[in-house]
């Protein structure tokens, strides 16, 4: 009896583990929860060391209020100048990063993987400028993107942002949850 249990469970555990691993990797690839970034980036360093506290420094808006999203290499090299120094005594001086050499200024090395579906009207600007009567802002970047200031990578929202997340905020802030507020 014991032998037969062993005969059954050894492959069971082995295969369960293998298939679990493969399928989950597949899922994550599909969901782009673990998209490969070609350039390492630490939010934490930039915030703590260089004192960039305003997200809009890198993730700003176009003139018409459209969200720019991920910065381009061109925007990175504004500080990390292509002809800058590679070493510096002062740790506050942004240094030349050789990893940018293989990119054009217009490239976006990180893929955006938190896109809203086609039928959602979502404006970062609207959410970010919404205010309470006393002038406090209703939302911060962290409300949806989590604690970026302490993150050491470029991971954003894992997987898809579900409608429930939007609706929770709307409910909490007394904003209408009627379908047509966001959908067409």
């Amino acid at each position, binding site marked *: 009896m014991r032998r037969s249990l062993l005969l059954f469970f050894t*492959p069971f555990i082995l295969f369960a583990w293998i298939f679990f691993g493969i399928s989950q990797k597949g899922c994550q690839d599909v969901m782009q929860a673990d998209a490969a970034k070609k350039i390492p980036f630490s939010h934490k360093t930039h915030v703590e060391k260089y004192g960039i506290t305003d997200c809009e420094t890198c993730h700003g808006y176009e003139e018409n209020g459209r969200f720019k999203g991920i910065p381009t290499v061109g925007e990175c090299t504004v500080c990390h100048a292509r002809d800058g120094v590679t070493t510096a005594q002062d740790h506050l001086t942004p240094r030349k990063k050789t990893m940018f050499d293989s990119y054009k200024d217009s490239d976006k090395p990180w893929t955006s993987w938190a896109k809203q579906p086609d039928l959602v009207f979502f404006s970062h600007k609207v959410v970010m400028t919404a205010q309470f009567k006393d002038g406090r802002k209703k939302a911060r970047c962290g409300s949806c993107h989590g604690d970026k200031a302490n993150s050491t990578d470029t991971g954003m929202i894992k997987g898809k942002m579900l409608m429930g997340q939007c609706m929770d905020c709307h409910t909490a802030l007394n904003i209408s949850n009627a379908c047509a507020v966001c959908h067409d």
Partner: protein
Amino acid sequence: MKKIDRKDFLKIGGGAVVGGLAGYTLSGAPFLGFQWLVEWSQDQYVPAPGIEKYVQAVSDSCTNGCKVSVRMIGNRAVKIESKDGVCPACLNGLQLLYHPERISTPMKISGKKGSGNYQPVSWDQALKDISSKMNALVNEGKANTIAAVNKNESLNGQLMEKFVRNAGSNNVYYEPSLNSITSNALGGYVKYDFAKTDFILSFGAKLVEGWGNAVEMQKQFLNWKKNNVKIVQADSVCTRTGGIANEFVGINPGTEAVLAFGMANYLITAKRMTSSGDDFAKWSQLIINKYPLGKVAKLTGVAEDKIKKLADDFAAAKNPVAVAGKGAHGVSGSSAEIIAVYCLNTLVKSGAATLVKNSAVSYTAEFAGLDKFIKEGSFSMMFLNGSDPVYKSVYGEELKKKLEKAFVVAIAPLMNDSAVYADYILPPLSFLEAETPESKPAVKALKESKDAKEIIISLAAMVDKTKNALPKTSADAYKSAGRETAGGKFSFNFEKIKADIEAYEKKLGQNAEYPVTLVPYEAPLVGDGDGLAFPYVLKSIDPSVLNLGKFYVMMNKETGKKHGFSEGSSIKISSARGKLGKAYVHLSDVVAPETVAIPLGFGHESYTKYGNEKGLNPKKIMTADVDPLTGAADWWSTRVKIS
């Protein structure tokens, strides 16, 4: 260690399969897979995003010069908007711009003419071939066998006229339009000052549906409403103009001219009014003798008193105007009718109708008009500048034969019934891609299309005789654009139209073989056929015109009953010129008795897959009597038999 037997092997295999399944399920993959399946099965197209902006565009290929604002997403145009109104052609500009069957490179025929087989060639090659052919003709002294048919009097039409005339040919024609026909009939086209008038007597002119200039008429329509202008519409089909008119005078089909004779008769005899036109005395004598009120009443179906009342009202108005001209897009060429109606204006000395000419457009050529040219003329080279005479002329079949033998160049963005006979097709830009002095191109030109003006200019530069005749660039062309000038003197041209006036009675009388009259009407947006290549136009066609592939003609209820037709029954229509295919009957009393009203603009043979094989083209069987003055066929009403 025991040997692994069959039972154990099954256990191991079972463990592996169950384990694999468990791992797979626990990973969440099946649920994600289902979600993917749902999304995959929905499979909807997501348009490419981009930054929104508005750019302005002005059309110089339509006669109205429509000004529009184009909504752009990135570099794609997604919407045409306008505050000033747009003509039907410009309204469909976006659908033309992105039409999947749009011709975007020069094409050379590669098969039998009419088969639609073409292969792309370079611009240089195409222009070289065309110009050398033209040079050869000029050198052989056969310059007068070159002909051109323009779509309209827009700037590229004017350039084409200049080009062909300078090459030594007189054969420049325009698709029959209100202006081209009235110019031939009256010696200048009528410029109406609708803002000043207080009484409009329309002889079947579809005023609010796009007659003349659609954008202008819509503006005038609002003015009429504001100023309480009285509109009287005499017509055999109550279209929207009949619906908005203060008074709708139902007349028998094709009797607009007779009604005008009757009213002129009454105004001349009873009111002692006179016209300043040449030959008035002779004309009025004939009208008075031939068309006494009693006979007019019988022919038109309008009571004598009613005619008198109408004429009295018309004469008593402060600034009345009488208008002729039939459809919103399709026009008929009866000069007797145009003259009779214009005569009413001169009788009451209307200040709202004056004759003018365009300095750059001469509507007269060797043959009086396009239909006459197709019927009697001959040519060895033909330019089709955006026009489609094979479809639009009642002589389409004859023209096909002549085009087959000639060297034909079509400037056309879409294949059409005429362009399919071309040796070369040169693709012009849509107005959204063209540059004008007032606007930059709204959209980057697709592939190799070129501005129609530029095509004509560069052709002219390669033809020896026209080298220096045309402006050097399309920007210069604007400076040479034609202007309106005062027109010639109004003449009744009595000798030429006498026979026509006399023939009316016979035409309208009883005809045992062809008892009913076929008249066309125009569906919104389709017009006389140009709109049919555009899918959003197809979406707007009323089910009483085209429904489930069935093409409907309208017939009066009692007439239908008399001839044994009920709603939806099939009908075959034939005239002395031939038979039409199968149509279906829609019974409606908006049509006069003993009349069949057929929608215009359908039945294209090669006008993109959206326009093809839809409905019937009534012009194939419409009367083809060419009018002596206008040179256009008077096809609007045709005697037919139905079965």
